[in-house]
């Protein structure tokens, strides 16, 4: 069994094993719970039975190649489209529930705002649509502008903004009213490296204040930096769910540089895992967890000097490609 599949199997309570009954509208209900959620457009299957659970307060990465059905799933969760099968609960209410949308911030993949409004006016418009109390409109707009780095451009027309600035504004719109769930659909697609870094900081701050972040992305690096757990979607179906560690392999490898020992010194270490030697370097793969100190001690007992110990994990990209059958 591959590490990722193992991660799927190992998912604990509340991580995909709940029945429909768990979807009751209780404060403790998951942020998102989907059961066999499906969507067909005519003869085309966009989503083929997605089941997943996102716990409250976690940053959840929704990964997959282009066309995997990620944006379709987001639209179903927000009620922008209707499923052709299955069901989904968001914050304890059926997906698309109008009142629940007060607690959801959403940055669409296609982020466009009224180009003839200023950034501040766009934010105030969304405050009004969210029915925030009037005295909160101006402070909320100012805060959002400050958080996304647009403080100096609040009174400029959105039409004069670059795509990156519009995406920052979209992020600001999604953060209004301190939502319990923030759905970010490809939030860094138009951003430069500084912008991407800023988004990571914002996502971490959201997690720190207890919000759930549903991060839809095809950028694995983005997920690696901020996500607590991810699900990988392929052809409309989840192929793996777990923490990054689980998806990257539960049996880590270690690369050790050893000096002071004669040739073929490593043969007594065969029991630690699958090994490969290259000069002074020894790569031990598929080690049992926690045996690295034992390995180092064994080398030292043989009279060797351990110059370096470098733990190695399968990268998320490698896991991703493996799961998608591309490797």
């Amino acid at each position: 069994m591959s590490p990722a599949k193992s991660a799927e199997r190992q998912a604990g309570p509340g991580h995909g094993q709940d029945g429909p009954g768990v979807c009751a509208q209780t404060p403790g209900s998951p942020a998102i719970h989907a059961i066999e959620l499906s969507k067909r457009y005519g003869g085309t299957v966009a989503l083929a039975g997605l089941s997943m659970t996102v716990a409250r307060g976690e940053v959840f990465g929704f990964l997959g190649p282009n066309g995997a059905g990620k944006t379709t799933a987001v639209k179903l969760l927000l009620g922008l489209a209707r499923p052709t099968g299955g069901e989904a609960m968001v914050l304890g209410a059926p997906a698309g529930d109008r009142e629940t949308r007060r607690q959801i911030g959403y940055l669409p993949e296609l982020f466009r705002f009224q180009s003839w409004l200023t950034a501040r006016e766009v934010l105030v418009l969304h405050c009004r649509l969210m029915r925030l109390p009037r005295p909160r409109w101006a402070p909320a707009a100012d805060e959002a502008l400050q958080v996304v780095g647009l403080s100096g451009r609040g009174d400029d027309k959105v039409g004069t903004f670059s795509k990156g600035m519009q995406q920052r504004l979209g992020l600001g719109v999604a953060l209004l009213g301190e939502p319990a769930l923030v759905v970010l659909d490809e939030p860094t697609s138009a951003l430069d490296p500084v912008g991407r870094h800023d988004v990571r900081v914002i996502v971490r701050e959201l997690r720190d204040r207890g919000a759930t972040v549903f991060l839809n992305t095809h950028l694995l690096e983005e997920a690696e930096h901020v996500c607590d757990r991810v699900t990988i979607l392929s052809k409309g179906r989840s192929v793996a769910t777990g923490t990054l560690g689980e998806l990257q392999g539960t049996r880590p490898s270690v690369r050790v540089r050893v000096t002071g020992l004669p040739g073929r010194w490593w043969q007594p270490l065969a029991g630690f895992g699958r090994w490969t030697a290259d000069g002074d370097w020894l790569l031990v793969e598929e080690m049992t967890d926690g045996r690295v100190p034992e390995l180092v001690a064994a080398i030292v007992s043989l009279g060797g000097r351990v110059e370096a110990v470098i733990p190695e994990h399968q990268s998320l990209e490698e896991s991703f490609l493996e799961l998608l059958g591309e490797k």
Partner: protein
Amino acid sequence: MSAIWTIASLTVREAVRRRLVAAFALISVLMVGLSGWGFYRLSHGSGFTSGESNLALPQAVVLFMFMFSFVVALSASAVASLAVSSEIDSGVLQAVVARPVRRSDVLLGKWLGLVGLLAAYTAIVCGLLVAVVYLTSGFVAPDPAAAAGFVLAEGVVLLTLVLLLSTRLSSLAAGVIGVALFGVAWLAGVVGSLGAAFHIGALHTAGEIGQYVLPTDGLWHGAMFYLEPSSFLAQQLAESPIGQGDPFLAVAGPAWPYLTWAGIWLVLVLMLGLVSFERREL
């Protein structure tokens, strides 16, 4: 209700910011200014007798209003066609409807905002026209306010239809179909009038059906009726070779049952638009 007003005021603000209001103001001033000059020439120094002037002035007012009703219809079609589908295509609406608002409130807000703009535009142009015609020629139509109301109603009917189409079709398709249907309805009205004048039952019936399917032409007849003094009407009927078949004559205003139908038609099409938008996948 607050979402409806939010969207309605946003729609009006968009028209102002995008300089739509400025463009219409400029065109209106140009239109009324030119017509003022025309009315002045018609009543001063044209060599017409007072009897001839009494015939020419109402006719000129009807022609002006016909042109204006066409401008209103085109404007209604254009703004309504852009209101929904182009915002869906651009992604602007997705961010709005993801908020805790009813989609029906969003569409109603847009409808209300556009109707408000159309009403203001119609009232201002018709008011200016009445003033200019009176100042340059001394002519006052029997009931210009009622006529303006019918022109506005005609525009609102088309606006509502195009808004419905815009929930499903592209902006271009919705606008073109709306204008084309408006033209067909007017043509059906002419055909119906000719059918009545020449006692050709099939043509008359076709015209009547057309007025029920899309009530723009029926409402236009209401506008014409309230612009024509009774003396003018009597003289035209006596002199016109086709009498009641003249497409620029209305011998009677629309009957109440017809106006009731136009109201029901409007509500039905608006509700259809609300349902269509509610069910639209974004």
